[in-house]
């Protein structure tokens, strides 16, 4: 059987999703046996040009070069997967959409910097067709392996889009909102992490991105009603739950 050819690409991001591939220590050799990984710069010097069946693209589009690269990847691949929250929703870089990117740039680089073009961080789907979204900051190892395994069978996996709360309940945690009056983004966030953070007694930061029907207003009202300062709520939700494009909704629904 022909090997499945996948390309692994990174735009602007932290490489955590690519690293997650290498973190599958137990399975790595098996993966290498079944899958040809092209363009995996982080792990290999063997740059193979040409077409790939599936491109896993990490990171968001943060500079014109990213966009050019993304378009080229799209050209080269049959399927394109938004690999990780940055690619899927913009991630951290897309957090503060209210501040102009040039202001951000000048804050970091000051007046001495050579002015390079700063653009608003955006998810892949703002520019090209995305065939499948594998969210997570970083992606969950299990879901990554499931994606590869399912791709070997010629299909994308069936990945849940229910909120983190579902897994939080299933793990029989106490609800952080109710117990401690803290902001928890569980109800806004797509599960799949096994409610990792609430199970550690840490409130969910929303790193897997928003569920398709994120109800900001209801969540905000709930938290405000429990005496939490609205700015605090906004800041936490802005991390991941209200990414590029949804941030405006959050602002609108907030008051």
């Amino acid at each position, binding site marked *: 059987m022909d090997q499945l050819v996948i390309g692994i690409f990174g735009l602007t991001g932290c490489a955590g999703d690519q690293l997650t591939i290498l973190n599958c220590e137990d399975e790595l050799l098996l993966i290498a046996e079944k899958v040809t990984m092209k363009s995996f710069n982080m792990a290999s010097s063997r740059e193979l040009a040409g077409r790939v069946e599936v491109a896993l693209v990490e990171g968001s589009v943060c500079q014109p070069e990213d966009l050019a690269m993304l378009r080229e990847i799209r050209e080269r691949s049959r399927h394109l997967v938004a690999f990780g929250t940055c690619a899927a929703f913009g991630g951290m870089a897309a957090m503060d959409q209210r501040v102009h990117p040039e202001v951000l740039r000048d804050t970091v680089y000051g007046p001495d910097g050579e002015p390079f073009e700063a653009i608003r961080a955006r998810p892949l789907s703002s520019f090209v067709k995305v065939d499948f979204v594998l969210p997570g900051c970083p992606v969950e190892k299990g879901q990554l392996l499931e994606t590869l*395994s*399912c791709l070997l*069978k*010629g*299909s*994308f996996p*069936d990945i849940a889009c229910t909120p983190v709360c579902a897994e939080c309940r299933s793990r029989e945690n106490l609800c952080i909102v109710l117990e401690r009056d803290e902001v928890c983004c569980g109800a806004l966030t797509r599960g799949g992490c096994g409610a990792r953070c609430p199970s550690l007694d840490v409130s969910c930061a929303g790193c897997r991105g928003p569920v398709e029907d994120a109800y900001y207003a209801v969540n905000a009202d709930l938290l405000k009603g429990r005496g939490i300062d609205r700015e605090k709520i906004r800041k936490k939700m802005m991390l991941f739950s209200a990414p590029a494009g949804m941030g405006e909704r959050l602002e609108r629904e907030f008051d």
Partner: protein
Amino acid sequence: MHNPYLPEDWTIMAMREEIEDHFFLELRPPAGSRVWEYTPGQFCGVSILGIGEAPISLSSSPTRPETLQMCIRKAGRLTSAVSKLSVGDVLGLRGPLGKGYPLEQIQGRDVLILAGGLGMVPLRSLMTYVLDNPERFGRLTVLYGTRTDLEFLFYDELTRLGKSGRAEVELITQEVRPGGRYRPENGDRKGFVTDLLAGGFCRSPGETFVAMCGPPVFYRYAVKTLLEKGFSKALIFMSLERRMECGLGKCGHCSVGYRYTCVEGPIFNYWDAYNTPELIEIREGQPWINS
């Protein structure tokens, strides 16, 4: 203890692309087993382990018990995977599921089959059943409409049937497309299924058993027309689609009101549907079927 979640491996004996993205399959049971006993209108769970399962209607008739036939439209993950299979491959099957048509109630009556689009698939089972038991039923009428003439399923079979005189068959399409099957010389017409109803097809509408299946819009207009024509609410049966995961009345996805579509349906008569919240609403003074 019987485990109703376990599929059996059936083998594909024949497979063809009936129309674009719609695959006709004929399956043989695993060695040592026989084709299930089933009633027209029932469905089964079709699966490929690792990809998923989907509810698919049985399109063959129990009067021809050698194989099972179905027609699957490429709609998502599982159905796409099925479309890539070929003769000799196996497919997981679980069933028969659901309740079929109330055959005792049909006994002795004229039968009107009213199909829209993919709705012809389960109705073909009933149609074949009626044809194979001419002594038990009255006149058979088949009215079948599609959006475009590219979408006619079982065209040759239906046309032949019409010509044979064993049943009255009328095909109608809203739109004629290049490469389509519309042939005026065969009596094919242009328009909506409801246009066919406007003609006086049935001698005694109030006594005729109506089996209908089609997309939501189809029900909306067809039910209205049937009622206007004096068909009996108790004899109008429709097949209502819902999301199904288990087909055993357990997973809850198909639950509407107090009913589990997968075990108590998918065939409901007008009153069933009317009494079940969510299935029929009255809008603008007209019954509005939520299917």
